[in-house]
């Protein structure tokens, strides 16, 4: 199998664009030296190469089975979890006092990228375990931390997040799972949760579910939701986790992709014997869960990107080896066939993939860098507050654009293979199935788009977009110093103006009081926003590359790397950024075609 990612590009992003080494000046990261970050990525590569990649196809073909109430998964999942637990990678970013090593999230993102590109489905197990353990450390009592989270970060036990119910998917305010208080301070949990990733398996002795439920008498809506730790097995009198906690695997979903991760239908408390432990305060569950959801949202954006990366490198390798036809300038049939990479349309598809992958890495790593800077500066610092405001705005974009465009990029990768891409002889069909979930996980594209337009750009008098646009303008000003980048800086500046114009138009609709009209095309607004912010990331990479060419005089492969960056940046501007024309035209169009009239709905 071809390589799945470019280590050189990850190094470029970490060391040259975001200057990860400078984070070590802050007390939170002071125990690190930059070479230690390389070692973390080396470890990720070893786990990816030796455990994950070899199991990628087989674990898709031999998917998990529910047999006599117990799910069996591919045995390599256990090897993976052991390697991750032994290496301390599950809790690497956690605070020292929570068993972590305070690794920058940026480095951890590159670590996850390497593993995810090798096997996107296995990464789910560690992502969920880390996220749920982090939630317990952040909001749970010391007792819950010691009983559960300490055993999750070593991979002895795994974790899940249980939000969705049959009648409450995107609409969490309709959650009906109940929690009845008991005399001993615990709660009896009763209800059903669906689409629970890694909800059951045979690779760990216990599974720690983090469940959203309503305590009897709680207010309606999201303000009445609490968070509970509900283990698969609870402790007996001796403190051993041997008691079946009445969490039943009612069904296993047969999914389109990501088949190595079982998605479960779980029933809690069918025998009235499922004990849950309240995390933090009652009725603040959704607020707590947002920590894990926001982590997972960036993780889903990463998923769209690292699968697209694996697809790109597979397509690139194939295009370099597959002879077919002759160049359109060559009519001589006696000549050998040319490799398909020499055909402009194939080059267009490949360059599109590269532009999406590396642009999305830029967008996501920017968000992780903001988080690291908040940790570094301290959340009370004014600069850190600005980063937090931009992060709150951009998390939804960094989830959605890479998910949506990751799907498009993998699709182009499959197209490069022609008919072979549609067969199981090559991994593209699997990647196309795997990536499809990303625009659905952790809030669909539609939900995130409503969030961006309905809340993100309007909160605090539009402070977040103001800060973001100022950041974009810093890059524009830097780019204008380079002749080769000047036209692209001007283009981006113009697009920023277009985005502001569209935003003002939509806010005008909001002021008229009809939210359905205002938000009807929020998904298109999200796409517009995503394209322009990825163009910003490309211009940023262009500036760093042009500086390297001018100041370091690289040669050979290094020069080619930077030149390729500039070329791909140009491609993004000429082929993708221009899509803003049609998106903006539609968003400024006042013809309303998708909003139901009251009488139609009735």
């Amino acid at each position, binding site marked *: 199998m071809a390589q799945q990612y470019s280590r050189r590009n990850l190094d470029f992003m970490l060391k040259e664009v975001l200057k990860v080494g400078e984070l070590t000046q802050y007390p939170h990261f002071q125990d690190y030296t930059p*070479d230690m970050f390389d*070692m973390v990525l080396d470890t990720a590569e070893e786990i990816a190469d030796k455990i994950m990649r070899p199991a990628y196809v087989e674990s898709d073909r031999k998917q998990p089975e529910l047999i006599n109430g117990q799910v069996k998964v591919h045995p390599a999942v256990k090897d993976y979890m052991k*390697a991750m637990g032994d290496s301390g990678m599950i809790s690497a970013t956690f605070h020292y006092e929570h068993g972590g*090593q305070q690794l920058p999230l940026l480095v951890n993102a590159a670590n996850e990228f390497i593993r995810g590109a090798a096997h996107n489905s296995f990464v789910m197990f560690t992502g969920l375990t880390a996220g749920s353990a982090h939630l317990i450390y952040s909001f749970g009592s010391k007792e819950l931390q010691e009983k559960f989270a300490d055993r999750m970060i070593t991979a002895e036990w795994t974790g899940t997040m249980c939000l969705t119910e049959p009648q409450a998917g995107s609409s969490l305010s309709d959650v009906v799972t109940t929690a009845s208080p008991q005399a001993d301070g615990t709660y009896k949990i009763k209800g059903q949760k669906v689409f629970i990733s890694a909800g059951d398996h045979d690779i760990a002795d216990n599974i720690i579910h983090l469940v959203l439920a309503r305590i009897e008498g709680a207010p309606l809506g999201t303000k009445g939701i609490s968070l509970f730790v509900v283990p698969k097995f609870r402790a007996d009198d001796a403190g051993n986790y041997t008691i079946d906690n009445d969490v039943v695997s009612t069904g296993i979903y047969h999914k389109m992709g990501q088949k190595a991760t079982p998605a479960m239908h779980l029933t809690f408390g069918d025998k009235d014997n499922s004990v849950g432990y309240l995390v933090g305060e009652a009725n603040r569950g959704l607020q707590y869960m947002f920590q894990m959801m926001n982590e997972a949202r960036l993780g889903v954006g990463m998923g769209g990107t690292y699968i697209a990366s694996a697809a790109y490198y597979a397509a690139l390798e194939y295009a370099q080896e597959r002879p077919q036809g002759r160049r359109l300038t060559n009519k001589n049939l006696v000549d050998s066939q040319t490799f398909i990479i020499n055909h402009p349309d194939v080059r267009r598809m490949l360059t599109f993939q590269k532009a999406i992958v590396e642009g999305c890495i830029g967008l996501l790593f920017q968000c992780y860098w903001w988080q690291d800077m908040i940790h570094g500066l301290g959340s009370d610092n004014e600069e850190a507050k600005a980063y937090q405001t931009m992060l709150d705005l951009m998390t939804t974009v960094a989830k959605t654009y890479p998910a949506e465009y990751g799907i498009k990029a993998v699709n182009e990768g499959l197209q490069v293979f022609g008919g072979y891409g549609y067969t199981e002889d090559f991994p593209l069909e699997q990647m196309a199935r795997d990536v499809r979930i990303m625009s659905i996980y952790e809030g669909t594209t539609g939900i995130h788009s409503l969030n961006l337009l309905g809340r993100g750009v309007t909160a605090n008098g539009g402070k977040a977009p103001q800060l973001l646009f100022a950041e974009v303008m810093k890059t524009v000003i830097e780019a204008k110093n380079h002749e080769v980048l000047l036209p692209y800086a001007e283009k981006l500046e113009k697009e920023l103006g277009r985005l502001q114009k569209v935003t003002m138009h939509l806010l005008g609709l909001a002021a008229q009081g009809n939210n359905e009209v205002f938000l009807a095309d929020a998904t298109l607004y999200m796409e517009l926003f995503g394209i322009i912010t990825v163009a910003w990331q490309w211009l940023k990479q262009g500036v760093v590359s042009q500086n390297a060419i001018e100041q370091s005089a690289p040669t050979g492969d290094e020069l080619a790397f930077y030149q390729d960056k500039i070329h791909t940046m140009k491609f993004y501007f000429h082929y993708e950024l221009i899509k803003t024309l049609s998106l903006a035209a539609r968003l400024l169009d006042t013809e309303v075609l998708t909003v139901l009239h009251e009488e139609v709905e009735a």
Partner: protein
Amino acid sequence: MKILVCITNVPDTTAKISFIDGDTKFNKTGVQYICGPYDDYALSRAVELKEQHGGTVTVLNVGEAESEQVIRKCLAIGADDAIRVNTEPTDSYFVAEQIAHIASQENYDLILMGRESIDFNSGVVHGLVGEMLGIPSLSPVMKLEIDGGVAKMTREIEGGKEDVEASLPLVLGCQEPIAEWKIPNMRGIMSARTKPLKVVEPVGSGLTITEKYALPAPKGAVKMIPAEEAEKLIDLLKNEAKVL
């Protein structure tokens, strides 16, 4: 138990190989370096033995400053300290001379290294070190247990295996499956920074001067002949490849 593990800093197996200065020097630009895979096994077994019997593991590398990234990784895996002999490892005898010089200053029970490096693949350094120190050397060792002052080993031989015993101290060239593969963990990575890495100057000087490197001839193009056209294949082998 005191164990010395000798490691090589070698180009990754996927590295693009090219030469500079009139083909007299290896072009290191853009090349990713790794610890020799056989050395990795030696180190992993040394760490396991330390865990079982106590003692220390010292990593030794004959190499220039660029080796230190790989040395730090070995410290992250579990070695206690490291020594780097600050010189280019020009030939096997020169490298063995450095190892023997360092080893002679301490009473190591075991001197472990890979059966061979994966750049020049001479596979003779362990033998030379044993000879220079006047202690036995064995290679390739695929299983190693220590019982008191005796090493019980399984060695790969032509067409089979050989179980052998020898008293410590020993020099061993190692290969898989002598140990479980190990990766640096986060605690190891954090502690590697503060573990001692001593740099010493070499003794003597290398005997080898490289006159010229050359890459293997590129592989010829493959011609696919349908199974039912065996005569055509024979014709090509006779008249084109001229191997019949």
